[in-house]
């Protein structure tokens, strides 16, 4: 049943949806062979669901639950270790504005597990995640800390999905998680780049349009979903309280893992730190000001991303 459709007209895009990580993942795949598009998308969805089970803090047998429950080091596989190591590195790069150990704020109050003082970091507190690269083990440093990968897992899952779709030679695709993290392969079947619209939460400025070609974009806000109000939508890991940086922040880069984490950090910080990588474009909607703040968009390949903002 394998047909050579290389000379055929493109088929209608295939749309697949899956529920995972507390949201809906949608995949829109375009090409010539519908059966191949569907099979590729299903394989990517299988992987997303597997990652959900592996990294959910609410699944009894997930890697995260095991680490949170254990009073000591937990051996994990290479993929989990790399993800947690990257998360810990991002914590450092964002000066703690991004931190997967949700309860770390409790640690600053002295609820600390027994550790050597020399493991302390320059900021006076111990890093929340202890990573042993030789044994590939992970240990929470603070007794009351716990891991929640909600601010990075969707981006990571999208990166994995995009990687699989590329391996299956899918020429054009858009993958997003609840509309907050989006990644694209190639351009739309019409030849136009995939376009993301970011609305102004204060509805004072025209929406920002971001075009994506083989790139990812994540958006983070302090307001959350109006249909499901929560006391605190975005936590500032440094204080344990509500984040008060910017009403909305977005990040654009090649990796959805990076944009997912950095969008959160930018929203918490309210400004782009000097430690942000040059390969990451940042978009901030400050609480007060005259419009969007876009940084480092010009350092990216313009064929990959371009921004257009029209302020009144």
């Amino acid at each position, binding site marked *: *049943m*394998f047909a050579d459709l290389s000379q055929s007209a493109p088929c209608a895009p295939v749309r697949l949806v899956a529920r995972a990580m507390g949201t809906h993942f949608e995949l829109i795949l375009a090409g010539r062979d*519908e*059966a*191949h598009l*569907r*099979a*590729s998308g*299903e*394989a990517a969805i*299988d992987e997303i669901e*597997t990652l959900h*089970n*592996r990294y959910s803090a609410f699944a*009894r*047998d997930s890697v995260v639950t*095991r680490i949170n*429950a*254990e*009073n*000591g*080091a*937990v*051996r*994990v*596989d*290479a*993929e*989990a270790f790399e993800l947690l190591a990257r998360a810990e*590195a991002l914590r*450092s790069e964002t000066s703690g504005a991004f931190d997967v150990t949700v309860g770390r704020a409790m640690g600053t109050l002295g609820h600390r597990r027994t550790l*050597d003082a*020399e*493991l302390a*970091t*320059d900021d006076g507190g111990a*890093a929340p995640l*202890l*990573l*042993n*690269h*030789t*044994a590939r*083990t992970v240990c929470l440093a603070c007794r009351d800390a716990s891991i929640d990968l909600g601010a990075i897992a969707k981006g990571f899952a999208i990166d994995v999905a995009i990687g699989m779709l590329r*391996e*299956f*030679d899918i020429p054009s695709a858009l993958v997003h998680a609840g509309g907050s993290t989006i990644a694209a392969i190639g351009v739309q079947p019409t030849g136009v780049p995939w376009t993301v619209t970011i609305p102004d939460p204060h509805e004072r400025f025209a929406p920002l349009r971001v075009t994506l070609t083989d790139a990812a974009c994540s958006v983070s806000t302090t307001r959350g979903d109006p249909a499901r109000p929560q006391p605190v939508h975005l936590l500032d890991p440094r204080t344990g309280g509500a984040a008060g940086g910017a009403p909305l922040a977005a990040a654009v880069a090649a990796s959805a893992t990076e944009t997912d984490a950095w969008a959160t950090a930018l929203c918490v910080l309210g400004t782009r730190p000097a430690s942000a990588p040059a390969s990451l474009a940042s978009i901030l909607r400050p609480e007060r000001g005259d419009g969007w703040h876009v940084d480092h968009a010009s350092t990216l390949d313009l064929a990959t991303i371009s921004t257009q903002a029209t302020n009144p």
Partner: protein
Amino acid sequence: MTDMQRRQFILDTAGFAAATAIIPSLAHAASGLRAPARVGIIGCGRQGRAIIAELSSFDMVTLVALADPESRRLEAARRRAPDAATHADHRALLDAGGLDAVFVATPTHTHLPIVRDAIEAGVHVYCEAPLAHTAEDALAIAGAARASDRVVQAGFLARANPVYDLARTFFRSDAVRTLVAMQAARSRKTSWRTPANSPEQDRALNWRLNPELTTGLAGEWGSHQFDVFHWYTGQYPTAVSGTGAIRLHADGRTVDDTISCMLTFPSAAALTYNATLANSYESTHELLRGTNAAIKLAWSHGWMFKEADAPTQGWEVYANRQQFHNDEGITLIAGATQLAEQGKLKEGVGLLHTPLWYGIESFLKSVTEQAPVVCCAAEGARTTIVGIKAHEAVTSRSTVTIDPAELG
């Protein structure tokens, strides 16, 4: 040296010793393994990679080798297990030596030569189920296992599942009373197709849609659920009727995407089985209906629904319950007594680990502690053949008899 590098250096030199001195993880304590086992995985598709993920939670197991002829799959597996040696085929993996056991997770129709070679190489074998695509191959695997002193376990996971084991004690203790009907179903909206980039790759990867190689939904999915009833009742069906159709995936395939079967048991009630690739509602479950109660099993969870006129046991007063529309089910919780004493009964709802984890744990216990094999090759072969017969019934739209002698 940055602060991060300094801390990593300290951890790398001191952490390993600390890690070995820690309180054993729940997984280790639960498994009770006393000796390290060196294992390999043959077949690095989705199931092989799932095995890799589960093995990482067993402290006393080292994954040392991977084998797959498809480089993309092998690379995907290697990313999860970078310390394991990689091989293009099972022969190279076995010839490299140094293994205590292997997990065979290749396409069903390729199991026999791999299992036979592994047994001859002196390693214990966990073979994914169903064991084979023909009765002859299934019986050959059982014969090879019987002639060997190696542990050979079939990957039918119900028998290692703590919730299923608990439910079976209720079933066999007369809580259900007279069995009147059995049902099982598996539903998932998916094409069942694996993406391929060439005709050769398509033939190799889409064996489930190849009428010459597949045992269809009845064999690949159904057999796992049939085994539950074989285990519970101690019986095997003597006839199976079936039908099927392509309801959604009209992509040129001839293998049905929706099937129905009825399996007739000699003295137990009949089992009706439905499976579809066109709808996901209710996922996977088994149901045993009796005159006193019904038991419903859903792989990570189980419930008992008692008839209003069934006698009440004292422990039921404290049981955790869950409402399903008009029915209230007693949640079957493994280790409930201990959890109740700790005031943690609700935390015990559902399995702590995946069903696959328990299957792997039981296999490793058999390998390292000579624990009884939860599903030996002979039992696995019998269930596999029932699945093959059911597929025959579906494809022929007829009733197929099953002579007990055919099951080995």
